């Protein structure tokens, strides 16, 4: 260790995070002194913050490749891409959730504040160049999410979910930290770049590296919700208020991809042979469990929770090859999946009203008669989640499958494909309810405000457009790794 002189960090490089942190504090204070019962100022400020964050990220980080804060923070295209994804997803989440939270009396200023801090944590995670900043980001994200799950304090189901999430999450964080400490013990550095270099030079301490790797893999798999570290997912998805579920299901998945790529995918790439089989194992289990169990779910949120495993399996498969193309496939998959799922939760939120959660699959019966537009949106979303050609979900699956086949795991590709077929069964069931069944009683009614409906419709149609012209997004994802 050398005694380094203190260097003034280049703050401009970390501008997106600084902006978000500052604005989160502003939101906190403004909300404190605002008398608006709907927390309007907090809402609009939050959305402005997120949009501003997108602009700042695009203009300061895309195409850049630099580090600041003594190498603990990396500004590069990959980080920028993931951050933009996270910010947009958070924007959608807040846009969809206002009516829902207000109807249930849980619209509080803390909701926006915690949400912004969770986003900040995700952004720090995907831009981390150092174990310490990585862990800091992960914990900031996780702690904010634990609290968000329990934001409806009077719901026993939400409290139980939050408790489980917290205890299991703390255990996983502990494992992650333990693994990191082993890495530090072997290499004597926290810098990911130096760790990568050390991993390449194998010596008799390699096995310590491997143990650290196992523990970190457990932590990362938990954050992904990969089987067998998945049990919290259905309970949390089901128990949490739908907007929070949306956040966990979308933005945090993108952050998890960043976590994996920074820590293992790129950080421990020299140990590819050692972690490849672990990722394959996680992917296989996720594909198997996720698909079979999703079949019997009658609650949309639980069904989406189980089907998440299937998609997590696909995302993990993209990592298996350890190539830039594979990683790009995973990022593409995660982003497109997150946008599709965000819109799906959006539809659930749209149809939910006081005393009617619209989260049972039969609640969608007859949607086509009530609202052809949103029935069509559901159709697009479901066929995209199934991965039927012509939609963006297909190209995501295609890129991933191509990368694993090129890596020589043909059987894995076949297995994944079988899983996707099973997936068709439960996704298309929703479509059937929307189109082929008559509404019972009042039936599904779009309730949200005009702005909400417009954003949701745009989100759904974007999934369609991205399916017809996926070229640009594919090119962007590939560019992030080249």
């Amino acid at each position, binding site marked *: *260790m050398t005694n380094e002189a203190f260097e003034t960090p280049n703050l401009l490089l970390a501008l997106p995070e600084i902006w978000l942190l500052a604005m989160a504090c502003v939101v906190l204070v403004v909300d404190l002194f605002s008398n608006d019962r709907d927390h309007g100022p907090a809402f609009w400020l939050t959305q402005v913050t997120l949009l501003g964050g997108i602009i700042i990220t695009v203009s300061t980080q895309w195409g850049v490749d630099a580090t600041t804060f003594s190498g603990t923070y990396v500004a590069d295209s990959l980080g920028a891409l993931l951050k933009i994804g996270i910010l947009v997803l958070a924007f959608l989440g807040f846009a969809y959730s206002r009516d829902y939270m207000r109807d249930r009396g849980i619209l509080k200023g803390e909701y926006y504040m915690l949400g912004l801090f969770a986003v900040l944590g995700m952004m720090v995670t995907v831009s981390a160049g150092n174990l310490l900043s990585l862990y800091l980001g992960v914990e900031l994200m996780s702690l904010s999410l634990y609290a968000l799950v329990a934001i409806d304090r009077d719901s026993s189901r939400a409290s139980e979910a939050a*408790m*489980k999430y917290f*205890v*299991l999450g703390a*255990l996983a964080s502990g*494992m992650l930290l333990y693994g990191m400490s*082993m890495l530090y*013990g*072997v*290499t*004597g550095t926290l810098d990911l770049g130096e760790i990568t270099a050390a991993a390449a030079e194998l010596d*008799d*301490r*390699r*096995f*310590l590296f491997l*143990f650290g790797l*196992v*523990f970190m893999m*457990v932590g990362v798999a*938990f954050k992904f919700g990969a089987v*067998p*570290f998945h*049990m919290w997912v259905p*309970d949390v998805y089901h128990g949490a208020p739908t907007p929070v579920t949306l956040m966990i299901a979308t933005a945090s998945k993108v952050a998890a991809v960043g976590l994996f790529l920074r820590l293992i995918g790129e950080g421990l790439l020299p140990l590819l042979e*050692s972690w490849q089989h672990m990722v394959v194992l996680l992917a296989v289990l996720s594909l198997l*469990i996720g698909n*079979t*169990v999703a*079949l*019997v779910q009658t609650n949309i949120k639980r069904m989406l929770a189980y089907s998440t495993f299937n998609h997590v399996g696909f995302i993990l498969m993209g990592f298996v090859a350890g190539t830039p193309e594979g990683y790009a496939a995973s990022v593409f998959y995660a982003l497109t999946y997150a946008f599709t799922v965000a819109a799906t939760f959006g539809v659930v939120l749209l149809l939910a009203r006081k005393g009617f959660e619209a989260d049972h699959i039969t609640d969608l019966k007859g949607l086509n008669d009530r609202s052809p537009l949103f029935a069509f949106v559901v159709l697009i979303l479901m*066929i995209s989640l199934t991965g*039927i*050609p*012509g939609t963006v979900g*297909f*190209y995501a699956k*295609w890129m991933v*499958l*191509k990368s694993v*086949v*090129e890596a020589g795991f*043909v059987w894995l*590709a*076949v297995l994944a*494909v*079988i899983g996707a*077929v*099973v997936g*068709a*069964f439960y996704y*298309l069931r929703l479509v*059937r309810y929307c189109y*082929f069944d008559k509404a019972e009683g009042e039936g599904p009614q779009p309730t949200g405000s005009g702005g909400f409906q417009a954003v949701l419709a745009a989100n759904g149609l974007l999934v369609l457009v991205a399916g017809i012209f*996926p*070229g640009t997004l*594919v*090119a962007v994802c*590939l560019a992030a790794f080249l």
Partner: protein
Amino acid sequence: MLLAVLSGFILAALAPWLTRSLQDKAGWVLALLPAGLFVYFLSWVPVVVAEGAQVVAYPWIPGLDISLTMLVDGLSLLFALLISGIGTFIIIYAGGYLHGHEYLPRFYAIMFSFMAAMLGVVLSNNLITLFVFWELTSITSYLLIGFHHEEKESRWYALQGLIVTVGGGLALLAGLIMLALAGGSFELHEILASEELRDYGFYAGMVILILLGTFTKSAQVPFHFWLPNAMAAPTPVSAFLHSATMVKAGVYLMARLNPGIGGTELWLYALGIFGALTMFTGSFMALRSTGLKAVLAYTTVMALGTLTMLIGIGTEQAIIAAMTFLLAHALYKAALFMLAGALDHETGTKDITRLGGLRQLMPITFITACVAALSLAGLPPLFGFIAKELMFEATLQAPLISTFTTVLAVVSAIMIVAMAAVFSLRPFLGPLKETPKKPHEAPLSMLIGPVVLAGLSLVFGLAGFLPATALVGPAVAAVHGAPLDFDLYLWHGINLPLMLSVLAVVAGLLLFWQWDRVLAVYRRMTFIDRFGPERGYEKLMDGLVWLAAWQTRLLQNGYMRNYLLTIVLTTVGLTGWTFFVHTGSSAPLGTIEFAVHEIVVAGLVVLGAIVASVTSSRLGAVATLGMVGFGIALLYVFFSAPDLGTTQIMVETLTVILLVLVLFRLPAFQNLSSAAARLRDAVVALSLGGLMTLLILAVNAVEVTDRISDQLVAWSYPEAHGRNIVNVILVDFRALDTLGEIFVVGLAAIGVYAMIRLRAEDRKK
């Protein structure tokens, strides 16, 4: 060319609006598009005949090697002509058949989407584009089978068809990826030009995956069950999708890939045997059917089997036979389906046994049905006769499996002759039977298609050189890989195929004569329904649901202790595995020397942990856990980390107080776990503890990087001007750490204070 494919999608978007504004004439006007396409494709025929295959390219997603390349050769052109030609009549026909139906606009929209997708399948040169269109046909087929969605059966069968075909389709995707890897390109014309496909390392796997896709799509045994069930669709759909076009997509792909991956023994056995079995199953099941559409559905299965078998045999004769049969079948089968629909539409029943004596009421239907059925039965002078002769010739000359294929072909032909007779004669001859609707001749829109198509069967039969040069010849060239010189004519002289034909006709007519008895025999054979592959499909679906429920009970039971159990066990498993695989049994375990006081403290910690886990008193558990914490704090102190020790002691104190305060508010302690469960928990906990011990021993054996404490000692005086190292560390080197710790402890203390206040207020009340 691109526009030709995509125009269907464009019209699909406009179709609902057009249908509403054009009212009755919608069918005739909309049919202009497929008719125009037919003429357009016809104009390509001279080009292809003269210059061979043409490739037309448009870029789409360069990043993924996906482009819209069209391959126009004899095979794709034959299919494109069938799709657009028959499509024209189907669209006109549907206008009459679904006249005034509330969902007619939607019907046209889906129908045109399907037509476009199907054209896409047969014209795509890029594997991925081909696959995209392939799956689109499955989806549109799903929507069309479920057209009468008020009926539960329609929905069920629609889903069945979708799952079988999409399932196979995804297997196909894996196969196509392998094909692209083997051929080094995604472009069909480049792949097929490659000579190394058959030597590819995973050749067998690739072929099996591709065949899974084509077999499910083209309803080959054992996936054939979905096709007859798909007859729940309106008749125009059955005629178009489930007879003339979509189900032939599998045949198309096998024919398309034949020059590249065909010709091996695997190919011969897989296609030859499964094709022949399908052919037999189709005709066997047709013979027992009494529904007009069911008969035709099973004869379609027969035809698909025949085509698969012929492609599998792969000799020059077989390829010629396959392409001839393909054309002949499309012509007569589409006509028969439309006639079946007309009968159903005008009489109100599809049951052959309830129809009779319609020859005078529906004369045109009768004559057309006779012509088409003659072609189906394979009698001269129809085109079907030529096709059947060629088929017999091909099976007789087949390598390795000729006896098997010939026997099955003859048996099938006998049964098909019988059914052709049943179909064309039973409803029309004999006394007039009572039907739900009062029958009369079908309208022009429903007759024009069958009459033209049946007429073509006759013309092509009499003038075999027409299809031979323009349609079958170029297609054969594409499937075989090189042009062949041949001619199609009725009279081949007296030879073995002719004798077989005569045998088939005679025996078939005997069967027809005794059909009612045959039906009675079939009725006793209930095992067909009990053990068929459809039961297998249902069992599989039930099994999946059962598996899901079982897994939920096992893993997702809502108990956090079980979740923890799984996580711990997996971690132990993964780490243990890494430990033994990567370091071997010779793991360098270090040894540690202990002082007596260390052992005593450690013993107390262990004792505390054990008591905490077995005690039935909450307070006792908290107190003993505190013991563990303080013990560890002491150990920190022993290992010269007083700062850590202090923090630990403070945190421990506060935690114990907090826990005690909170636990007081809980209901009385209850023991909920059984002895066995506790034993299991103990084993799991011990496994984690044991693993950690092993790890620590292993870590201890390794020289880690420079100890940071040496550096701190060295810097203490020169850098921080302090002689007490602990002080320097606390307030200088790790000043921020200390600040953070103070902050945390302070926060916890505030929490404790709040809790105590709460309790005090409770008491006052």
